[in-house]
Structure formats: structure tokens, C-alpha cells
């Protein structure tokens, strides 16, 4: 590896360590990255000079010498996240420390193609180009999970000839900033599974939507299922004719439509109980839209699971509603930030 590449990798490691912990002192960075303190000191000086990092003030004093915490410079620039759903398009602007600077709903309806492209550019022009707003560094397009990015292709026309290009490519061409595409599904799953890995616990993540996808982590390690990281339980749920207690089959059902597989609490509880017999699950995280994952549905599922487990210790159940998009935008902004700062 060339010296230039080694230096570049070390820079990436330093920034990565700071992003992971929000703020670290030089010595903590050295511990975290296994680099020598002098190397870290040199790299950090360069990163401060280039405006990537700032000293946030004394953080702790040890052996008579204070450690100055370093964090990413929130004024380095801004990150835009466009949440694209079937009901609205929302643009949020974050600083590099992931604080939300501003937001605007670009459309209260479904928008696609060149209309959406124009809406986003107008939104960016209104928000990001405002006086005093930091320079736009990157953008994330956060699609609703049942959408396909190709729905949003933009027609690039010269008047005589034309071509269809992805929305992200069109935005990149126009704004000259990295544009990444993500799906709300990925974030919900990523957040749930990441927490299980960090806590070294065993658990399952089940997403309720057009498919019912399950992923399992045992003692912090993801279990490789037959179809990869996720298994689709929809065929199992739809074809299931048994339940823990036939009399208890409840009317509280996620109705079947294009966006959802029909799910009854009983069937869902039965599937979870099967997972519990196969894996030592401490927790099960469900995600789905708030309008379908109602309080009654949740209560019915929890009750059914206790019945299915027949007195055995039930795992902790957690329900993530997908309409709270703010945190998902921040997660998307974090991904964009990592792409920019680490050139992933």
C-alpha cells in the first residue's frame, strides 16, 4: 500500500471513530484506532485546518492534563434528506452534526419523475441556498419501503433526443453532490439489528408490510437464513391454518392490500413462538405503519404470544411505528454524512 493510501486510510479511521462516538479526545482516538498518539495528533491537526473537525472544549482532566474533545465541525456544510412517500414529499436539512436546520413539505401528494425532480430542486433552492445556510454537501433520497427508485426516473431531454435516468443521477448531475438512495425498510431493520449486535443480545426483527420479513441475531451475531439475512414469512402466515388457540382468533387483523400481507395477531404470535423454540430470543422488534399496527393489534398479539408459549418466558416485544419519519431522516443524513466524510 502506498504512503498516500495509508494516510488516507488513517484519516478515514480517525473520522470514523469520531462519528461513532460523537466526540473523542486525541488519546481516545488513538486507543480507538490503534494509531500512535503522534500520528493521531498530526492527522487531527490537518483535519482541523481543513475544517472537518473542531475542538469542542475541555472534556476531562486526567493526570493534570485536560483532554480536549474533538467533534465533526457542524458548520462544515449541510445535508439534505428528501423523504418520498405515496402521500407526501418532505425535504429536511441537517448540519454535519445531524442537527435539523430546516424542513419543508414539498408536496402533499405523490410526485414522481420530472415533477419530483423540479420540486426537489426548488426546495433545495429555497432552503439550502438561503443566506447564511452552510454549503450543501450531499443528499439522501429516502423512499417509502414499497417503492422502487425506477418509479422516479427523470427524462433527460435535449429537445431532439432524450433518455431516462434515475432521480439520484439527475440530482447528482444538477447539484454535483453525492446523492444516495435508501429505503425506510433498511433503516428500521438496521437500527433494530445494530442495537442487538451492540448489546450482544439475541433477538428477532420482524417487518410487517407488503412482505413479512424476519431477521434473527443470536448473541450479537446475525443468523444466516436460507434466503440470506432476511426470511419472508408472508407465505407461511398466509397459508397457516393452525393457531395456538382457535377460539381466540381475533378480529383485529392487518387487512390485506397491495401494501400489506393479511396478518392476524394469532398467526403472528404463533410464528414468533416457533422462532422462540428455534432461537434463544431475548427480544422481538416489530416494525410497521402506525395505522395498521394499532394498539389493539399489539395487545392481541402479546396476549396470543403468551398463550402460544404456554407459560414459558416470553421475549421482550418492541413495536416500531414507521410514520415517525424524523429519526429516519436523521439516520439517512448520517449515512450521507459517512459517505461524504469517509468517501465510502
Amino acid at each position, binding site marked *: 500500500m502506498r504512503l498516500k*493510501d495509508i494516510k*488516507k486510510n488513517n484519516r478515514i479511521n480517525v473520522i470514523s471513530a469520531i462519528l461513532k462516538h460523537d466526540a473523542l479526545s486525541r488519546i481516545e482516538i488513538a486507543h480507538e484506532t490503534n494509531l500512535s498518539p503522534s500520528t493521531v495528533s498530526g492527522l487531527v491537526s490537518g483535519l482541523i485546518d481543513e475544517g472537518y473537525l473542531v475542538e469542542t472544549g475541555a472534556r476531562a482532566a486526567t493526570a493534570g492534563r485536560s483532554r480536549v474533545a474533538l467533534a465533526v465541525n457542524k458548520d462544515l456544510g449541510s445535508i439534505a434528506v428528501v423523504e418520498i412517500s405515496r402521500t407526501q414529499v418532505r425535504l429536511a436539512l441537517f448540519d454535519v452534526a445531524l442537527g435539523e436546520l430546516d424542513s419543508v413539505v414539498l408536496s402533499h401528494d405523490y410526485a414522481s419523475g420530472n415533477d419530483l425532480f423540479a420540486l426537489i430542486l426548488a426546495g433545495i433552492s429555497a432552503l439550502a441556498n438561503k443566506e447564511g445556510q452552510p454549503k450543501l454537501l450531499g443528499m439522501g433520497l429516502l423512499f417509502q419501503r414499497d417503492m422502487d427508485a*425506477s418509479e422516479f*426516473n427523470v427524462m*433527460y*431531454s*435535449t*429537445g*431532439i*433526443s*432524450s*433518455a*431516462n*435516468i*434515475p432521480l439520484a*443521477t439527475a440530482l*447528482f*448531475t444538477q447539484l454535483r453532490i453525492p446523492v444516495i438512495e435508501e429505503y425506510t425498510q433498511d433503516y428500521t431493520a438496521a437500527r433494530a439489528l445494530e442495537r442487538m449486535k451492540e448489546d450482544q443480545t439475541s433477538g428477532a426483527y420482524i417487518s410487517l408490510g407488503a412482505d413479512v420479513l424476519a431477521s434473527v441475531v443470536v448473541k450479537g451475531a446475525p443468523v444466516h437464513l436460507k*434466503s*440470506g439475512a432476511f426470511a419472508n414469512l408472508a407465505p407461511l402466515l398466509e397459508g397457516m391454518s393452525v393457531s395456538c388457540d382457535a377460539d381466540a382468533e381475533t378480529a383485529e387483523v392487518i387487512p390485506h392490500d397491495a401494501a400489506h400481507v393479511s396478518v392476524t395477531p394469532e398467526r403472528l404470535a404463533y410464528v414468533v413462538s416457533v422462532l422462540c423454540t428455534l432461537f434463544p430470543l431475548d427480544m422481538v422488534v416489530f416494525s410497521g405503519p402506525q395505522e395498521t399496527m394499532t394498539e389493539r393489534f399489539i395487545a392481541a398479539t402479546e396476549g396470543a404470544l403468551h398463550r402460544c408459549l404456554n407459560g414459558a418466558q416470553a421475549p421482550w416485544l418492541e413495536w416500531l411505528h414507521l410514520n415517525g419519519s424524523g429519526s429516519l431522516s436523521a439516520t439517512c443524513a448520517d449515512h450521507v454524512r459517512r459517505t461524504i466524510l469517509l*468517501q*465510502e
Partner: protein
Amino acid sequence: MLQGSLIILAFVVIAALMMTKKIPTLLALPLMAVVICIIAGVPAVGQDAEGTEIGWLSAVVESGTVRMGSAIMAVIFGAWLGQLMNKTGVTETIIKKSAELGGDRPLVVTLIMVVACAILFTTLSGLGSIIMVGSIVLPILISVGVPAMSAACIFLMAFTTGLTFNIANWTTFSSIFSVDVATIQSFEIYMLIATFIATLVLVFVEFKRNGVKFAFSAPVENAQPTKQLTGVRGGLAMLSPIVSIILVAAFKVPVCPAFMAGIIWILVFTATNFQKSMNLMVKTCYDGITDGGPAIILMIGIGILYLAVTHPMVTEVLNPFLLAVIPADRIMFTVFFAVLAPLSLYRGPMNLFGLGSGIAALVMGLGTVPPLAVMGAFLSAERIQGCGDPTNTQNVWTANFVEVDVNGITKRLLPYLWAIAIIGVVLSTVLYF
């Protein structure tokens, strides 16, 4: 005579509407076909004495939609393979590994970029791929000191060099000229050499003009691949763009199976998980069809126009005009096409992906000049259109990306492209006349 004059007038009017952006090419070609048929007196519905359909609804419009069927399939499979190359990181790795190979020497980096782009565009197609490659290559060229205008011109010439050996294009030309792919290949080899030499001359002239030092040391920024393909499998995956060409050119494998082999090749050498590979295969297939959409609809129009101008009732009307215009003498033929080659610009009458396909069919049907010489002349003129036409999406995108005037690119490239076209016309006369 009146009918012939009216057809020429209709031709000029529709061409003018197209060139002035009043109607798109995809509408202009079928419209022209129908107007030509009506003026020539072709009935909408009808059969000849032998019961064969001669009405324009069936013999021209219906049959025309599938006339370029094999070319359409080649475009789809080629775009599918191109999408796979983009999505698996093969495209990006080839460019960035090439940049690393060039080190910090601008001339070497530029020449290697030319070769890498040329190889990539033997398979890649569509504006999406141009953007994918251009957004990496152009900043690399600019970062080593090549001025924006020069970088744009060099990139487009490199793209055109590769396009010469794009086997999906070969199939299109083979359908337009009604010859086999091997005949197209045998002429395109000369065009490849001529275009590559012209690209090298362009590079040296631009370096000289801009005073870029031939051994100037400059950093190549952002040359770190984001999707690393490494090891023997990565190396084999990077051969993907040439697998299909070798199969077609050396082993005479038909184009679509050759693309399928390329698709299997890239999947085998980039796959990390069977299920993911299958998903990627399906996704890139759909995306490839989207990429190929503009070319596909254009080919439907070309097919319809082709059948219109080759309809016996139309040729009967137009042949006297063409016989008076198209020279039957070798020298005059060469001069005629060499001088008129730039008429392929702005979607003019020499543009094979438009009106030129119909004119080529008409001239070939005259019987006064060898059909292969006509093929060579039009393929030569196609060099100017493919690379220099400011109405191409790739030209407009490239110009916008490096912030130069798109017509400036055409002006800068025209001498080189015209020279290639003249060489091509002379060669086609020598070889086929």
C-alpha cells in the same frame, strides 16, 4: 413527378420540424413513413395479386414495428449486461484501477482513460452509463491538468472509439443494411482503427495546445474504488466487457447468446450470495430495458420508415429523383458522401439513427451503386453523428458536467470526425465499389 416532389417536400418539412425540436424523432419517423406511403398512393389496406399484404397499415406500420426485432433484442441484452457492469462495480473498478495504473503522469493517465472508456463502451450504452463513467473519468482528467473542454472532447472520442465495437450497434446496422453482422464487423474494424488514431491525435494536439506538460506530476483525486473488486475473481470480472465481443468477433457466436454469456460471466465472478445475485440479475434486466427504451422506440420508427421507403410503390416514385442525385461513378460517389457526411449532425439526412436509415435503404435499392459501398459511406458519416452531434444526450450531459458549450465541443471535434468519415468513405469505395 408531382408525387416525388411532394415526398421530398414532406421529407424536408418533417426533417425541419424534427431539427427545430417541434416533434421528437420517435414521432417523426413513423409520421414520415405514413406520409410517404399516402403520397405514393399506397393503400391503407390491400393485397397484391398473390395475396400478399401491400397496404401501409399492415406492410409498413405493423411489419415495421418488428423489422428491427433482432436489433431491439441486442439493445436489451446489451443494456442488461451494461447495468450489471455498473451495479457490480466492474465499471467503476476498471476506471479507477486504470487511473491508478497511470500514476501521476497526465499523458499516461489520459491515454489509459481513453483505452478504459473505449473498452467499457463496447458494452455499455445509454445516458446512465455515460454519466456513470463520465462523472469519474472527467474529474480525473481535469485533476491531472487537462482543461475542461479538452477533457470533454477526449472523453467523447474515447466513447465513440468503443462504440465502434459495440456489438448491439452492429446488430442495428446489420438490420438497417440487411447484411450479416460479420460484414458490419469487417468494416467497423477499419473505423475502430481510424477513430482510435484520431483520438490519439486529439489528445496530443490538446496537450500541445494547452501546454499540459507531458510529464507533469499531478495528484489523481478520488481514485479509491468504492466497490472493490479484487483478486482473481475481480480480475476475471473486469474482463466482462470483452467477453461478448470476443465471442461474436472471434467465435461467430450470435449477439444475444454472446451477451447472455457475458451476463453469466459477470454474475459468476462477482456473486457473493446466490439469492442476491438472482435479485440483481432480475433488477438489472428491468433497469436495462429502461436504459434501452429510447433506442428501442427509435428502432421501431426506423423499421417502419425502412419498410415505407422500400415499398415498391414508393421506390417507383422516388427512384427517378435518386438516380438523378446519387452519383454512380466511384470518384463522384466518394466526393458526394465525403462532403455530405456532416449532414448526419442535428439529426440530418445522413443520420443512421433517423432519416438516414430510410435514405440508405433507398440508395441501396437503386442498384446503381454497390450496397456495401453505401453501407460504408453511411457508417462513416455515423462517426460524426455519434460523437459530435450537439443534440445527443451524451454531448449535452458532458458539456453541462464540465461547464463548456456543447456547440464548442462539436466545433472542436468536427475536423477529426470529418477526417475519419472521409477515410471511411474512401475505404468503402476502395473495398466495395
